[in-house]
């Protein structure tokens, strides 16, 4: 251990550079995971806060985000008659706003303020009372300098911003809320409903109500958490490939950095390893010295990487509040384990040098 430590710390700058390399690689892995985890929170934010535990959608639609849903007329009455305590209709659709020369996808929710299904927390202002009023996501509003009282063009209509909602943002799309009647008129679909957010009566569990409603024609009935899981699955499909690619590259870079440092340190001390071998040290002992060096460099780098990630995440969320980066203990453990795996991979090359070293060679030099 002491040989490994001395060998590693002999050149402090080199050690610092190797630790930085690992730290940056671990930071990249953690940032990507934290970003994905934050995105998952943002994707399910609306359903998480929406009323009810059962959702009725058009037949074939099993996602809130992603697929457009349009329920057969009169479905809300049928649902009510089958044991629902409360039925909240919403009419929702992705749309693209042109804000300050930028394309901004938003998820437009048309709801009835008396029934619910709108913003769950207002940072300022109030809910829409008229069909030309809108509640805007606070972060999106701040990014574009939009304040209460401002007029925003949505498709071909002007809306006055009357409220700013909290917790309704994401880097991909934010939520905005208007009255359901306004959405019907804006999207040229009078009387249309996309989803029903249903609360079962006291006598029924969510599962029982789902089974009862399952017989309604032209509809798909799901528990709210099933819909949330489907949305997560849908988005995970888009992002998992690029994310795995980035994580793989970061892992290789980290392993290369540690490998280079341990390799250089081993080559420099080749003679000394030869002497150790000549006086009877076994290959296993020398492997241990090399591996411990790699483990120390990667452990320090990993811990630093975790610290750096927390700082970087805070900075990113401060500068770009549409990004949510959440750290879970399991992710941190995985990143540290990745750092250790980098060390083991990195120790392979130097270990081969040590193994191939002839003890007599040192006396010939």
């Amino acid at each position, binding site marked *: 251990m002491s040989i490994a430590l001395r060998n590693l710390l002999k*050149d402090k*700058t*080199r050690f610092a*550079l*190797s630790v*930085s*390399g690992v730290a*940056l690689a671990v*930071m*990249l892995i953690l940032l990507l995971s934290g970003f994905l985890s934050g995105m998952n929170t943002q994707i399910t934010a609306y359903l998480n806060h929406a009323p009810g535990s059962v959702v009725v959608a*058009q*037949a*074939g*639609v*099993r*996602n809130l985000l*992603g*697929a*457009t849903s*349009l329920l*057969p007329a009169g479905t809300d009455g049928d649902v009510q008659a089958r044991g629902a305590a409360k039925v909240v209709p919403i009419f929702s659709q*992705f*749309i*693209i706003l*042109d804000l300050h020369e*930028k*394309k*901004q*996808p938003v998820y437009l929710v048309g709801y009835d303020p008396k029934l619910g299904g709108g913003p769950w927390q207002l940072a300022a202002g109030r809910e829409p009372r008229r069909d030309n009023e809108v509640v805007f996501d606070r972060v999106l509003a701040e990014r574009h300098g939009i304040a209460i009282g401002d007029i925003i*063009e*949505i*498709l*071909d*209509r002007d809306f006055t911003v009357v409220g700013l909602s909290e917790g309704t943002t994401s*880097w*991909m*799309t934010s939520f905005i809320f208007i009255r359901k009647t306004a959405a019907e008129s804006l*999207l*040229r*679909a009078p009387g249309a409903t996309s989803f029903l957010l249903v609360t079962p009566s006291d006598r029924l569990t969510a599962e029982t109500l789902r089974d009862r409603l399952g017989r309604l024609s032209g509809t*798909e009935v799901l528990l709210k958490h099933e819909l949330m899981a489907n949305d997560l699955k*849908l988005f995970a499909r*888009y992002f998992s*490939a*690029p994310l795995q*690619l*980035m994580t793989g*590259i*970061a892992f*290789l*870079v980290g392993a*290369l*950095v540690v490998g*280079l*440092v341990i*390799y*250089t340190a081993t080559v*420099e001390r080749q003679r000394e390893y030869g002497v150790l071998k000549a006086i009877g040290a076994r290959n296993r002992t020398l492997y241990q010295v090399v591996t411990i060096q790699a483990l120390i460099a990667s452990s320090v780098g990993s811990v630093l990487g975790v610290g750096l990630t927390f700082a970087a995440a805070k900075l*990113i969320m401060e500068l*770009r509040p549409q990004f949510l980066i959440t750290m879970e203990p399991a992710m941190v453990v995985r990143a540290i384990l990745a750092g250790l795996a980098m060390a083991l991979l990195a120790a392979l090359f130097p270990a081969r040098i040590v193994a191939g070293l002839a003890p007599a060679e040192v006396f010939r030099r």
Partner: protein
Amino acid sequence: MLRLAFRNLFQSKVRLMVSIGGVALALMLILSLDAIFAGSQNQVTAYIDHSGADIFVAQPGVRNMHMTASALPMSVASEVKVVPGVESATPILYLTNMIVVGDERNLAYVIGLPPRPVAGGPWRIVEGKPLPSVGEAVIDRGVAVKSGVGLGGEVEILGEVFTVVGLSEGTTTLLNSVAFISKQDFARLRGEARTVSFVLVTVRPGESPETVAARIETNVNDVTALTRADFAEQERKVVRDMGNDIIAIMNLVGFLIGLAVMALTVYTATLARRAEYGVLKAIGARNGHLYGVVMAQAFISIALGFGLGFAFTELLSLAVPYLNLSLALAISGDSLLKVALVSLVIAGASAILPIRQIAGLDPARVFRGR
């Protein structure tokens, strides 16, 4: 100077490989993310590019297809048709929905086509017929293979069962594929008998799409008319605007990792040859000359790393279509230029530490031993 830099660099092949490999991977991180977004921009406009339409007419304020909806009164198609310069006007219905086969669910642009459409239908049919009649669907071949259905098989779209009568190609992207059903089925299932989503216009030979689009906006009330090129550009802008911040953050991390790897390798290479640099100094070599050697090493390494990173990304873009990832990587000239500039900055910055080391080197020291 260059010869000395080369020799110093190639003296340890393993170190050189690690250094070039590390830089290549860091640069690949930047290049591949750029390529993913550039590829997505190309994919997202596939339907528009191949629709055969010169102009897209939509609901006022609607300038995109992706992540949006458009509704126009049915009468708009006939109003557009009589605008001077218009050759044909094809009304289509459109929304995003799932193609369901058992447990397999694939997101798709669902297009409702009228009988004998001039524009808007599938552009490359590999099997079956190109246009669906009532109860029939044309779907992307990749989706069909993934879902295990062929011609004559059944898929569920908009909650109804359709028979697959055609398989198209080039109709899939990272996000979704395109499926075609008859406008009659679409309207019935959505209860949208009186509206259409878009009107796809072709112009008469010799007419400019820009002029005709402007004419349509003047002559027909409450519509937005964009040429195919403008409409596609609006789609690409959505991907660009969504990706800008992510790309900036990942580029910064890639830059820092590349910098750390380069700084480390140039530093260790210089450190290993400290005694030789001392000898050069002792026999009269000026600091400027030695700095030049270090800089040359950094630039040679980064140039090799850049080449390798580019080759890696190019290979990845060739391999991706075979990995069933629905990704398309496109390396743009702008991205290459950006990475080349980043590489130059990395090379310059990574030479700072070794240069400081050489500057502080005492020539007499080499004669005293290290």
